[in-house]
């Protein structure tokens, strides 16, 4: 019931308090013209303030009223969400073991962070996802487009072409999993059309990165079929000469919130690739994902990619719904595929 909660400028808030309006109830009780004269603003502005006040207090009232369960100012019941989650789509990673521990693939409507040492295959997974999101609906994919935000310059077009060609060749395999009665028709996709559906942005500073995340809302409104946003990597520009660490944390948090909002609003997946750094824990140096401790709370899911002997593994470090497990995968000329080793069992931790 605080006046401080209203999204208006500080000076207007100050005037409200000075005029004696300390609660939202008192604001909505007063008429617009009375408010206008009391705090010396125009009538339009007074109407706006009253509107904000009534919206916020409606939320407060409904919380107390248990029978008014639906439409709680944008809230949903858990039951509706369950139905949504059942049908929520996932993007395959082309590696069966990895898909299994992810519950089918990378989830839409969530922000997933993938981090690992240099050379583990982060960019490769990013490119594979940008291609896999375009798998048509008949083959169990999303038939969507991808946005690839490159901050390091590691996007190799020839590699995308290679992975796209392999994906098209392997596509009939996917149809077995989903629709057994689909005729074995020739896949009409051409690798160039896959390349055409990847929107590429090259970001050269953290300012551009933040500006781009802000702009994505408008961009995706105009390109509604984008189903995945990949940022490779989210760390790079925030790591080089950033003196004010507190500022960095604030900016990263705001960026993460905006990305989560985009994910939910447009039902797409957001994949953030992160680097590693060393940290002194419990008497020895250990690897940990970069950007600090507060960043580690920002993403919904966190997957760490690491070397286990000679094999590449992925480990689910943090997820609200997935079990902690690790799976092996490999990077081949055709993209991300199952690992060839004999111990292919998924390890539950």
């Amino acid at each position, binding site marked *: 019931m605080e006046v401080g909660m209203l999204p208006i400028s500080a000076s207007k808030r100050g005037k409200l308090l000075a005029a004696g309006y300390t609660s939202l109830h008192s604001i909505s009780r007063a008429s617009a013209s009375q408010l206008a004269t009391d705090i010396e603003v125009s009538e339009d502005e007074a109407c706006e303030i009253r509107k904000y006040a009534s919206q916020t207090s409606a939320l407060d009232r409904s919380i107390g009223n248990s029978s008014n369960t639906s439409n709680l100012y944008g809230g949903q019941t858990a039951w509706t969400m369950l139905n949504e989650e059942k049908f929520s789509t996932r993007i395959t990673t082309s590696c069966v073991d990895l898909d299994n521990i992810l519950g089918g693939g990378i989830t839409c409507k969530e922000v997933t962070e993938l981090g690992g040492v240099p050379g583990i295959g982060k960019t490769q997974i990013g490119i594979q996802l940008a291609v896999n999101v375009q798998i048509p609906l008949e083959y169990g994919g999303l038939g969507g487009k991808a946005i690839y935000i490159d901050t*390091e310059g590691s996007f190799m077009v020839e590699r995308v072409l290679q992975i796209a060609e392999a994906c098209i060749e392997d596509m009939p395999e996917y149809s077995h999993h989903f629709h057994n009665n689909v005729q074995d028709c020739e896949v009409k996709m051409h690798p160039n059309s896959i390349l055409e559906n990847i929107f590429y942005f090259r970001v050269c500073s953290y300012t551009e990165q933040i500006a781009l995340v802000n*702009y994505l809302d408008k961009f995706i409104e105009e390109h509604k079929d984008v189903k995945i946003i990949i940022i490779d990597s989210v760390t790079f520009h925030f790591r*080089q000469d950033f003196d004010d660490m507190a500022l960095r944390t604030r900016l990263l948090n705001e960026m993460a919130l905006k990305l989560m909002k985009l994910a939910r609003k447009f039902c797409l997946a957001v994949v953030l690739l992160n680097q590693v750094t060393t940290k002194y824990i419990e008497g020895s140096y250990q690897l940990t994902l970069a950007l600090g401790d507060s960043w580690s709370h920002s993403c919904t899911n966190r997957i760490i990619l690491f070397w286990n002997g000679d094999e590449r593994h992925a480990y689910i470090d943090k997820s609200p719904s997935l079990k902690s497990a690790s799976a092996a995968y490999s990077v081949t000329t055709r993209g991300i595929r199952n690992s060839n080793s004999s111990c292919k069992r998924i390890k539950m931790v």
Partner: protein
Amino acid sequence: MANKLIKQMGLPNSIANIFTARNIITAKDALSLTEFELMEQLDVGMAEVKSAMAHISEVVCPPCQTALLLMEQRVRDERSAGHLPTRLRGLDEALCGGLPFGVVTELVGPAGIGKTQFCLKLSLLASLPANCGGLDGRVIYIDVESKFSSRRLIQIGIENFPEIFLKKGMAQEMAGRIVILRPTSLSEFTESLHHVQVSLLQKQVKLLIIDSMAALVLGEHDCGASRQQVLGWHVSFIKSLAEFSRIPIVVTNQVRSQTGDEPLTFSFQARSHSIKKEDRASYDSHLVAALGINWAHAVTIRLVLEARSGLVLLDDDGIEMKGSEINTIHCQGQKALFNSEW
């Protein structure tokens, strides 16, 4: 982009003036504040802040391209679709044509493995005319350890491209295209980089080689933290040089022995140690690429040069390097072997 002035962005005058009044002049200033902070500082409502920021973000945002356009552009505008062929068949195949333009490629290996020789060959290749598969351009060679030998360069040239080098005056022209800089300290190196930037703008330079990065840094600082920070600026600068001028940049790196027995691991790995790493691991020398993990993240391609049983072997297929060996160098295990024509 980041330093664009807000008043030139076409915002409505009322809000643009407020930004200036509160000393938020460039886009970077505005984007470095969260929306809430802006609301407080500018003393305007959230809706106005959001629309102003949306406008500023759209102006500052980088342009959108599709991957297809990118590919077509490279194929059309650049030699070998944006690659410098190294003439090592396996390597060129693995790299889709050769060392890519616009990125930093790192060569890592123990002393005496042939990093400088490889760099000499690359500088030759870049200076050759286009009909011989070269880039027909100048090369800047930053030689920190004074290892550049012109005599050896001409020797390589004569042996590999006799049809050019034995022609009168050609050797002089080819060698004349390679400029060697010899900075003796990090500050001199920084200065040379600025000069390099100017030459790049004149568009004649087609390759930049830094041999070696490690020697510059390891001589300067003692403690690890400041060394990483020092490199931070250089890394970004070198990467942006590569990017804007679309040339390949090759950097050599040394190896150092690693303190401690095992490679670094994550905290969740501590529980499940690999039971047997086979005795070879404990007896071989543990070498790690120098300059740390931050540098390793920044380079785009890392080529690890190794010797197998004392010889550089010949094989047609490239085998991928696996395991933490990408950051650690052992003397056994799976290695990448490439065909060499030297």
